[in-house]
């Protein structure tokens, strides 16, 4: 092993031949000095490391529903199976995050600070944090970071209520793009879950015709389909339902460790390259 500070830990050239710096595009050349290291452009996040897969969410007649599984993947390795990706912010807002888990944790802290300054410090009972405020704040954070060429590597869905108590659902991602829709999903979910959700809610305005039971069923189906076909997903997920009760008060239901039930893997044997390799 080479013990020169600039070469530390590299296989020695005598034994293995010179290292080809082309391999790593940000490699440190042999003639490196401290000065030339300083001159090297600063590097920022260029890919996520530990990742969470899809978040799916939808409005229904008197609230919103959101679900995300508990897997943290390291590339294709199922590294963690206990990652909570739905965060409650304030009293009636949920934030669901997919993408890099460490960036998600950073966003969790940012949101905690926001909650402290807007809710905890306010003791005169002023207006409180709503989903729209949280979403706008996050979109500024995300856009600001992408403008510094140092994005937080996440796709985020924010769900809750508008001031007039109509359901709120909006998306923001690592480049600062935002949009709202009655059904939103990130990652693989936007390919696999959105068609199922849109079967129930074909157009944005149609969410008013759908009740909690119907949408819960479709979310359950979507999570199953995602577990079947998304190799980075898990069979355990968290689900949040925020709705209004008969008196118009907000009810926040956070259900953890929901299992993907009624699985059937019979289809697998008919698909080449899926599951068993006996073919």
């Amino acid at each position: 092993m080479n013990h020169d500070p600039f070469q530390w830990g590299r296989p020695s050239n005598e034994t293995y031949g010179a290292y080809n710096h082309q391999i790593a595009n940000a490699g440190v050349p042999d003639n490196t000095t401290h000065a030339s290291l300083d001159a090297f452009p600063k590097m920022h996040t260029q890919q996520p490391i530990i990742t969470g897969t899809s978040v799916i969410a939808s409005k229904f007649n008197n609230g919103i529903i959101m679900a995300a599984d508990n897997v943290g993947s390291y590339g294709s390795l199922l590294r963690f199976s206990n990652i909570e990706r739905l965060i409650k912010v304030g009293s009636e807002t949920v934030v669901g995050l997919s993408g890099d888990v460490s960036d998600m944790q950073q966003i969790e802290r940012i949101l905690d600070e926001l909650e402290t300054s807007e809710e905890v410090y306010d003791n005169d009972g002023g207006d409180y944090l709503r989903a729209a405020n949280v979403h706008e704040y996050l979109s500024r954070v995300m856009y600001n970071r992408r403008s510094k060429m140092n994005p937080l590597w996440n796709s985020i869905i924010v769900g809750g209520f508008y001031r007039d108590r109509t359901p709120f659902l909006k998306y923001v991602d690592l480049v600062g793009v935002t949009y709202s829709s009655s059904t939103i999903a990130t990652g693989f979910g936007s390919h696999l879950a959105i068609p199922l959700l849109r079967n129930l809610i074909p157009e944005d305005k149609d969410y008013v015709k759908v009740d909690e039971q119907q949408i819960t069923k479709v979310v359950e189906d979507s999570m199953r389909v995602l577990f079947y076909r998304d190799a980075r997903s898990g069979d355990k997920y968290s689900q949040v339902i925020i709705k209004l009760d008969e008196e118009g008060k907000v009810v926040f239901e956070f259900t953890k460790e929901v299992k993907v039930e009624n699985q059937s893997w019979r289809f697998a044997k008919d698909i080449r390259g899926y599951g068993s390799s006996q073919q």
Partner: protein
Amino acid sequence: MTSIGTGYDLSNSVFSPDGRNFQVEYAMKAVENGGTSIGIKCKDGVVLAVEKIINSKLLVPGKNKRIQTVDRHIGVVYSGLLPDGRHFVNRARDEAQSFKSIYKNSISVPHLMDRLGIYVQNYTCYNSVRPFGIVSIVGGIDDNGPHLYMIEPSGSCWGYSGAATGKGRQLAKSELEKLNYEELEIKEAVKLAAKIIHLAHEDNKDKDYELEISWVSKEFTKGRHEFVPDDLLEEAKKFAEEDDDEEEEEEEEGDEMQE
């Protein structure tokens, strides 16, 4: 007062020959005229209460809160110059926030008090500033249970079981000394706080007051610092005024007897 005319009271950071800092002592005078604040530490939480003197009928009832929250689990109440108190709370919030941004954990109450003690003490060391015109009572719950502290303009900061400051402090202190802090439960403490503030108000009877009570408890507020709910506040007020009626009746009876 011995300090007047000697010149030793004109500046911070200057001792008198007998070792006193008069500016700090004057700051205490500012506190002694403020509405009474108290804090009670019981076995399962902390209660803060303040006698909020109503200076004008035009003030909106129930607004202009005096008790403030520093972090989810810590509350502050103070007597003295209110703007100084606001500044003190802002600093406390900054300290709590900066601790969290470094260690990703909530600050413990003793650690926060350490930092605030240092901050307040700094205002006694330079002649370009004046000391804080407040005595503040800080209470909260952390991993080591409930804590209650009181900070004075000198920067000295002690832990207490029961603390009182402001105009009615003497009376409040003598009442607080009667309590058994090992056995006291927080719901009882809320009522007692109301009673003590009520008694302490005797000194200041010409002015109306509004009662503000907050608490931190594992059981009732999940370790958060919050104002007590309205029904409990009403119950406490009723409890505080109970004996009053009896006394008044007795007095009336006495009057009748004389007649």
